[in-house]
């Protein structure tokens, strides 16, 4: 891969915004300009790489990410269950920088001025863009669980719903728990990040208990009226593999917590656990609301599915879990990667003065471990429908595994390696 303009770009260094505005002026059929990407997860890393690759270095890309390395949420339940380590789910940004010429800045974006097309950074700096991509993931609505709305409580009662320090901390809580203890995980009302993820986590914690602490229990407190994903496969795993260990309770929304006693407060009931794992309701990452772009239900970003562009703020594209999902579309890492490619193609067309592809397609596959080796999947394909202006699930396509199996356990590991390479290698 030849990146002809990379040297010029790297030379530009701190003056990137000046360079960017110059590139922005070069109209023509080939895409040029400066794209700033906020957030280096499954969506942001993908759009950054694909913009550089598909423009053959013609478009300058700056990626701003608060963490020094990428840590994957998918597969992180295996770390919590004790069969994988943090090293197994951590990938460097070095290839994005050195192989693809993406300028990676470790920092946080504190504001967006959509009229001036600039962003401000937590170090006081600012930067201009021709197009902005927000891939901010989710932030938690701690105000919905008042007892959790402070830092001390959040350091004791974990979500571990963003992979990183909380993944390790939850594993440690489980290791410290005595045999005969109770682990409770709460699930917010849909939509939430990774629909099957909480049920997978329950399985993998139960798998750990079965082997190391057989008198212990796993309680699932689900705010929803039923299992939200792969229901038949999960419930079969619970009865076949974890009878007497996993107990599922539907319509059990956690309204508050009593931190001192590790107690979840439900509408008519209280539940005390030894390890309490609360996944609060969430919404688009905070920067989405700060940018002034249109949100639906004050939570998720309203986007145009031909370009992933905000419906009320031209020039700002949004990816991944932060968007208001199209029908049956899950908030998943795989889907965020697909959003990244849809956006990259659209942005390159727009920068070259052309319309976005009028018929985009995205698809999803999601693998869940029910023990250390056996896996179940769900898949779907979504095609753009001009009548509804949405990507719609294709009827008759997609589905779930026939039964849990070890072959898909190997496929799931292969999926992780390939998607991490597709984003970051």
């Amino acid at each position: 891969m030849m990146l002809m303009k990379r040297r010029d770009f790297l030379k530009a260094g701190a003056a990137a915004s000046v360079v960017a505005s110059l590139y922005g002026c070069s109209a023509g059929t080939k895409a040029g300009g400066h794209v700033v990407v906020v957030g280096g997860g499954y969506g942001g890393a993908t759009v950054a790489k694909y913009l550089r690759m598909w423009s053959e270095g013609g478009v300058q890309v700056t990626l701003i990410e608060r963490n020094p390395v990428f840590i994957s949420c998918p597969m992180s339940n295996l770390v919590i269950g004790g069969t994988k380590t943090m090293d197994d789910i951590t990938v460097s940004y070095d290839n994005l920088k050195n192989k693809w010429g993406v300028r990676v800045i470790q920092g946080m974006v504190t504001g967006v001025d959509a009229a001036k097309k600039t962003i401000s950074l937590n170090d006081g700096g600012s930067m201009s863009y021709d197009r902005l991509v927000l891939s901010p993931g989710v932030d938690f609505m701690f105000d919905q669980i008042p007892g959790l709305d402070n830092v001390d409580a959040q350091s004791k009662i974990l979500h571990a719903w963003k992979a990183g320090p909380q993944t390790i901390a939850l594993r440690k809580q489980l290791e410290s728990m005595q045999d005969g203890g109770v682990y409770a995980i709460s699930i917010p009302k849909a939509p939430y990040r990774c629909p099957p993820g909480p049920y997978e986590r329950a399985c993998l914690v139960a798998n750990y208990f079965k082997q190391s602490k057989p008198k212990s229990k796993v309680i699932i407190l689900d705010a929803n009226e039923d299992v939200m994903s792969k229901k038949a496969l999960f419930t079969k795993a619970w009865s076949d593999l974890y009878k007497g260990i996993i107990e599922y309770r539907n319509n059990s929304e956690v309204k508050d917590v009593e931190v001192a006693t590790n107690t979840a407060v439900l509408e008519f009931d209280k539940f005390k656990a030894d390890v309490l794992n609360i996944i609060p309701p969430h919404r688009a990452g905070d920067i989405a609301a700060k940018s002034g772009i249109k949100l639906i239900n004050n939570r998720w970003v309203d986007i145009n599915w031909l370009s992933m562009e905000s419906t009320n703020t031209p020039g700002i594209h949004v990816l991944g879990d932060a968007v208001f999902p199209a029908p049956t579309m899950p908030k998943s890492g795989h889907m965020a990667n697909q959003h990244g490619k849809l956006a990259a193609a659209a942005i390159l067309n727009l920068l070259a003065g052309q319309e976005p592809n009028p018929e985009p397609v995205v698809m999803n596959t999601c693998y869940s471990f029910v023990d250390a080796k056996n896996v179940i999947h769900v898949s779907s394909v979504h095609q753009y429908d001009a009548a509804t202006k949405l990507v719609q699930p294709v009827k008759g396509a997609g589905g779930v595994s026939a039964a849990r199996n070890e072959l898909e356990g190997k496929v799931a590991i292969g999926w992780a390696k390939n998607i991490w390479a597709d984003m970051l290698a």
Partner: protein
Amino acid sequence: MKLITPIMALCLLVSASISHAADPNLARNLAATCANCHGTNGNALKGSGMDALAGMEKEKILQKLADFKSGDKPASIMHQISKGYTDAQLDLIAGYFAARK
């Protein structure tokens, strides 16, 4: 004439909607939806257990996809995914991967 004109107009409309200006990078964009599992440009990681599609003969890819779609070839997931794409889209995808290295 009175009858033919609206029919002709309808035909023109239909053909216009079918052959609306396709994106010049449509094949590339469609093939990218496969890359999560099959690697960027079809270069799956060696030893990952996924088929590397880059440089595979177009006819061979199309035959595999047709067999997944019909159920002739047993699969864990591709029988479900292949049904999500039209034959014309699969043709573009296969052609794109065949031309990669």
